[in-house]
């Protein structure tokens, strides 16, 4: 629970992807697709409910070279922040 990286508040988000209710592997695949729609250096915010995303997203970021900024727990879902390389 507390070993997941926490993102700072108030990030300047270029685009938001609503992946709430989606389960494995859709949140990650949607993220992969959505990141293609923003520019390098911009931040993508992903809203999700699948606990698996808390590992899948940072893991994929590390592999793909994007910067994983962390997550913020909200009411009944989680916000993930990714900075495109």
């Amino acid at each position: 629970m507390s070993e997941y990286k926490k993102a700072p508040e108030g990030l300047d988000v270029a685009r938001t992807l609503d992946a709430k209710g989606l389960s494995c592997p859709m949140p990650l695949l949607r993220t992969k697709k959505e990141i293609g729609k923003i520019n390098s250096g911009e931040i993508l915010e992903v809203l999700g409910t699948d606990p698996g995303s808390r590992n899948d997203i940072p893991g994929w970021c590390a592999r793909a070279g994007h910067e994983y900024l962390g997550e913020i727990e909200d009411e009944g879902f989680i916000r993930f922040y990714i900075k495109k390389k």
Partner: protein
Amino acid sequence: MSESIMSEKVKNFFKILCQTEWNATVSGIIVALFSILIMAWWRPWGAVGAVRNWGEWILYGVGIFSHKPGAVLFSSGSVIGIGFLAGAFISACLGNDFSFKFPPPWELVKAVIAGILMGVGAAFAGGCNVGGMYNAIGNLAANGFTMWLGLVIGVILGLKYIYWEMEHITWGTSGGKNIDFPYALKIIIGIAAFVAVIWGAYHYADMSDEYKASLSGILLISAGLGYTMQRGRWCMVQAFREPHMTGDCTLAKSVALSILVLAVGCAVLKYAVPQRGSAVAVQSVLMDAVDELDPDEIKDEDLADAVEDVVDASEQAVVAARRVLDPVNYVRGTFGWGGILGGFIFGLGAMFAGGCGTGTLWRVGEGQIKLWLVVPFFGISNAIMVHWFKAIHMEGVGPMHEGSKLGKHIYLPDALGYGGTIALIIFAMVVWYIIVDWNEDSNKLIVEM
């Protein structure tokens, strides 16, 4: 001073046990351990057995099936499913993973398709990914390898479908909802479920019927499996999918290792226990003693009857001891096209579902409504297929599946000996491990979006 360190340690212990996600490799080893334990108890575990039983009840309830299915609380397959769900539910509650996660409508359509495909695939392969592949290889059955191959192909095709779908289908792809509860409430419900499982196990154990009493251990070990798999998010379809999707091979390696440990454990049980079992020893001593006696010399009728009863009982005990680790368990007549086709259809279905047989069940335990819809369709389609296959003797007759049209029934030690079998399984799992590890860096097997 020492009290606050102690309370810190106790808190940390429960955090690791109930809240932190367990590492995949460790989870795989624990799953293999529980799998060996339940085999030693008296039977290997599986997922489709439970789901099919519940599917049969649905079909019986609407009048399509006329034959009353086995009791939900007293069929071992169903009890395994109940225990597994309970364990996963307990883990999800204590770890704050449980909430009702409603997916967008298109995901529900995929859930129905997934259930049907998985039910059909499991019928051809003689089991789902657990009974047809994991516990099949684990039980030293050749058909485990054919389903493995089918799964690889089915998952790759499923991944290509998902990519196609993301480009071309927009209807019903957003609008998911989450209904959550306070964590404190989840902890209370989780503990209540835990108490219920323990109570259930004691209740079974108190029953006079030996079979029913044995369900106590089945329930507990299955709950342990469900707990471990949810806690570690251990999913076999992820093992087959991730190397082709992101290159990540953590799950694949852990499944390979888990199968290896399971197979070795199973080989030890199946080879050694029937030979050393006390029932066999007692019987041989008894037969020696009885040989000395001439039954016709026994004037006392009661004594003669008693001797006969004792001999009968010891013979039954030997049969029971041998049946416990019956090599026939989980060896199916599907080593051939049946296993491959079954694995292919099942793998494709698992990609639609987003979980394999067990992944589906533990996701049910954490409130993923999409998977709640997969289960009944999985059960109904598998019940129909299995009943049809039985009627046409698709998998042959008898426990040795003589005349199976789906493939051969091969218990590997019969063909290669126990040593050869273990060598083969080690070799296969090591090759799998090395290939996915190589792919993680070379990315040669990744299916592009």
